[in-house]
């Protein structure tokens, strides 16, 4: 019971903190579309300092400044694609939380699938071998085993 309570508490804390971190500074947006674009961009662009966070979740100073830059560029009329392009030219594909599928990122996207396929093949072939191992026991051996057990 106590464990359950703890788990619920931890889940609550995790949920609340991610909500609290969702936005650090507030901006005035000229239109709902601009606000939507801003939120998509800060979700999809990576914080380069704390590399496993996106801009939206990071309070690193560079992330703050990059959010400000995204806001400024949107205000000046840049499109979402133009801003992503601007960041990719400077920080590489790495700046995107969802890197594009291309030859250099092929392993990143499909590596896990390949690993899974290899593992599945290994497991299946292992299981087959095991099964064969059981079939090897013929009737005579079974009789012998039974007589031994009966004794």
């Amino acid at each position, binding site marked *: 019971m106590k464990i359950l309570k703890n788990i619920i508490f931890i889940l609550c804390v995790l949920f609340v903190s991610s909500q609290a971190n969702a936005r650090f500074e507030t901006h005035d947006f000229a239109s709902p579309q601009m606000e939507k674009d801003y939120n998509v961009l800060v979700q999809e662009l990576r914080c380069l300092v704390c590399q496993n966070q996106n801009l939206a979740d990071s309070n690193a100073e*560079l992330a703050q*400044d990059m959010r400000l830059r995204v806001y400024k560029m949107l205000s000046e009329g840049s499109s979402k694609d133009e801003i992503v392009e601007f960041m990719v*030219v400077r920080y590489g594909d790495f700046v995107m939380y969802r890197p594009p599928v291309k030859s250099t990122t092929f392993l990143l996207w499909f590596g896990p699938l390949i690993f899974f396929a290899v593992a599945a093949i290994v497991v299946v072939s292992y299981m087959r071998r095991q099964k064969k191992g059981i079939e090897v026991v013929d009737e005579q051996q079974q009789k012998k085993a039974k007589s031994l057990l009966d004794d």
Partner: protein
Amino acid sequence: MMGGFAYMLNKTNSGEYNPRDIPTEFIGRAAPAINVPDLYNETEIVKTADMLGKTWLFNVWGTWCPECWREHRYLMELNRLGIPVVGLNWRDERPEAKAMITKMGNPFLKIGFDPQSAVAIDWGVYGAPETFVINAEGIVVAKHAGGVTPAVWEKKFKKHFEN
């Protein structure tokens, strides 16, 4: 897989591979403008265009960055050798930045003051120190993330200054 891991770990330990390094796509492109006021003279704008015609270093530093203090002595040495270095004081306070220069010496021709990463983001900077080599035509030809040391100079930068 284990072999690959051990290989990368070895490279990391020997300093040849930095897992946090972000490959820049900036090499071979025109250097962005700087266009921020000078640390000492607020009415003077530090410009990339002013450096056309010579090969120079662009060094991003801040007083909050320990490696920048370590690196500073070597920048002084490069300055003595006649290498033009433009500085960018990044996310700092003016008085603190000036105090560091007073204490350590000034290896820079000019120092741009960039408290809100306006220039840093334009140059794709993600940490300090970072140093770029820009050739006489204004093209970025090399970049190093981390302190400039004699080894870095020999390996990455020197060849661009030889002609």
